[in-house]
């Protein structure tokens, strides 16, 4: 299986592509510069070698001439031998006027350099000859051959060192760039995951701003967008719940209209007919008619109250639940005094609910406790607050020692106009707890109860500590 360049490129990440392009560009340009420098240095060294050759032969010529004048060939040979020890000098030759030739040669090992590099250097042996003429008389000539192998090797070593340094530099650059890119891309990956979570319905996905400034800015924007979506979704959920509640209410109201509201009307009609038959002189029938009319009015008042809850403006700030409980307590003080009961308020917090609804909520719960108190003992009601499992909410509890409720009625008691006792035993239309549930659910909270028949009931509900549509406290 072969990996074509196109597939390799296609499989590279953005960071890899950037890095590869950067490395390729810098490698090509730096290699070009290195070879340019090598060619220039070689040229300079060649010039230098030419000058050195000239200097060497200028030094050699008079020494050989002195000995040629005397005819000391041994001394000339020694001089030539001394010169071939000099750096770069490969061959020194003296040829006299008659053609006699003395020479000294040193085998310089050829430079171990690749042929391409050697061609770029373009250095060749430097040969210079100088005739020896003194007073017009020729004493032959001297010639020198200088070999650039040592210079070539030095330049080659320099090139290798430069290339090694550059390779290290490239590696370091690549490593650092990779680290920077990874560090920069990691937040983008987190963002991708967060988007995926939101796609799958987890609207709580948020990002901790990290990475480069522009990425952090993007993440802050994402968080704001996610918050807005979550708020809108929550609002939509609440609207849906309210719609559902309204629909249930409407169904309930239909039932009321068909049953509860018609019952007094039928009673009025029936007793009005009796009253008509007896010439209008039947005080008992008249009393039934008046009683039915009163119940009709009471029902209408409670329906009005229940419906009004939906039209009260929602909270735009926090309010003290303690103050609301105290107000409700004050309103019910005559009833409480009459029954000899006692309500204890714990440390109640500030909550995100308008004061009017909160007073109504406590008033209904306290009234319920008073109404369903046990005849065997003095009423004791305790109001307390504790942290809720629901983030940003507090759980409030109103516990009494009343007659209690059977478990089978736990859900039923919150329905509108649902009653567990006859009106003769416990007066009322059965709308109070329905109103309490509506207040709590409109605030985004939940309500429930625990009760043991004969021992007491504890209503507990959650209320937001802050605006649930905004994560900030």
């Amino acid at each position, binding site marked *: 299986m072969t990996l074509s360049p196109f597939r390799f490129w296609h499989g590279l990440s953005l960071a890899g592509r950037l890095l590869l392009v950067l490395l390729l560009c810098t490698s090509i340009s730096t290699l070009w510069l290195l070879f340019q420098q090598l060619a220039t240095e070689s040229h300079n060294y060649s010039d230098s070698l030419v000058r050195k050759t000239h200097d060497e032969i200028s030094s050699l010529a*008079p020494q050989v*001439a*002195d000995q040629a*004048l*005397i*005819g*000391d060939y041994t001394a000339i040979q020694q001089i030539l031998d001394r010169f071939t020890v000099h750096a770069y000098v490969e061959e020194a030759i003296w040829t006299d006027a008659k053609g006699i030739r003395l020479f000294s040669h040193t085998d310089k090992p050829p430079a171990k350099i690749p042929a391409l590099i050697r061609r770029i250097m373009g250095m060749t042996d430097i040969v210079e000859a100088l005739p020896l003429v*003194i*007073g*017009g*008389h020729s004493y032959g000539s001297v010639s020198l051959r200088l070999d650039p192998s040592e210079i070539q090797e030095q330049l080659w070593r320099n090139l290798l060192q430069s290339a090694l340094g550059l390779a290290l530099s490239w590696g370091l650059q690549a490593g650092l760039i990779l680290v920077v890119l990874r560090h920069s891309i990691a937040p983008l990956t987190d963002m991708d995951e967060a988007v995926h979570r939101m796609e799958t319905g987890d609207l709580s996905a948020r990002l901790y701003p990290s990475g480069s400034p522009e990425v952090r800015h993007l993440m802050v924007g994402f968080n704001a967008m996610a918050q807005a979506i979550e708020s809108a979704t929550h609002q939509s959920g609440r609207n849906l719940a309210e719609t559902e509640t309204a629909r249930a209410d409407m169904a309930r109201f239909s039932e009321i209209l068909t049953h509860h509201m018609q019952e007094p009307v039928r009673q009025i009609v029936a007793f009005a007919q009796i009253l008509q038959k007896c010439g209008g002189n039947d005080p008992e029938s008249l009393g039934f008619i008046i009683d039915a009319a009163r119940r009709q009015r009471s029902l209408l008042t409670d329906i009005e109250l229940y419906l009004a809850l939906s039209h009260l403006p929602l909270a735009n700030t926090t309010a003290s639940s303690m103050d609301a409980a105290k107000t409700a307590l004050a309103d019910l003080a005559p009833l409480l005094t009459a029954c000899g009961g006692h309500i204890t308020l714990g440390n109640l917090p500030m909550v995100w609910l308008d004061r009017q609804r909160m007073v109504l909520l406590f008033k209904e719960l306290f009234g319920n406790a008073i109404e369903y108190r046990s005849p065997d003992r003095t009423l004791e009601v305790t109001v307390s607050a504790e942290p809720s499992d629901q983030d940003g909410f507090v759980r409030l509890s109103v516990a009494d020692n009343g007659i209690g409720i059977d478990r089978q009625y736990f859900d039923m008691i919150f329905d509108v106009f649902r009653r567990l006792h006859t009106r003769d035993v416990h007066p009322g239309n059965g709308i109070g707890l329905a109103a309490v549930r509506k207040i709590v659910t409109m605030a985004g909270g939940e309500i429930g109860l625990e009760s043991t028949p004969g021992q007491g009931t504890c209503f507990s509900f959650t209320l937001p500590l802050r605006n649930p549509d905004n994560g900030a406290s």
Partner: protein
Amino acid sequence: MSSITVSRRHVIAGLAACASLAALARPLRAEEKTYSFGVLNQRSVPLIAQYWNPILAYLSRKAGVSLELKVGRTAPETTAMALRRELDFTYSNHLFRPDRLGLGYHVIAAPATEGIRGQVVVMADSRLRDLSGLRGQDVAFPSKESFAGFQLPMDALIKDSIEVKPVFAGNQEGAMGQLRAGRVAAAAVNSQLMAAFALREGLSYRVLWQSELFRDIPIMANDHVPPAMITAVQAALIAMGDDPEGMAVLSQVAEIWGINKPIPFIRASDADYESYRRFYAGMSPSLESPE
């Protein structure tokens, strides 16, 4: 056809005649010998060559005798060549000692100068005023062979009982260089060379002692050289001063040596150098052997 045959015969005869002439000419060319011309080391070897090579080239052309410069590393070496009779011609005044008269060298010419003196010189700013101040001092000499630079001044020092520490410099200009460098208190020199050196190098010096005047160094020929050759060389030498070409050569080499004017050659003979022989006759016995 016959005419062609006759022509071929003539051509062959002509070629044979040419070949015969060439065969005859070859021994004559083989006899063309190069004669060695020794020059006493008064200056460095290259300076000697720069001066004498143009002169020898001129003489070779004019006299029809091939002359080649031959010089030793030092004056004693060159003199040793003469003593071995390796030199056909020589420019030297080392051969007038009684024991060297039998070597066969005879004077044929001499430079046209007033002559030479042996001198003991010091730098112009030296505190030394006479030879007695040199007692125990380092004095530079060219070599023991040098007539003007050693034998004349050393004879005078010995006769005045002044013992000095001799420092041999190899040649005349070597001794002068030692003096200029301050390595010796005085130098014994050839008056003519000293004057030329001082002029060339801008040196100021003072003469503590000088000898009587002697004829300048002669050019001698050995008697194993064919007389015709000697005569030809002698004639060319003497005529050089009258020949514009010769004077041009002399002017050129005089400039190299820093001499004011060119020095031509005049005819001379052994008799002109009687003063040398007189000196050797009265020379201090301790100087008789140059070794």
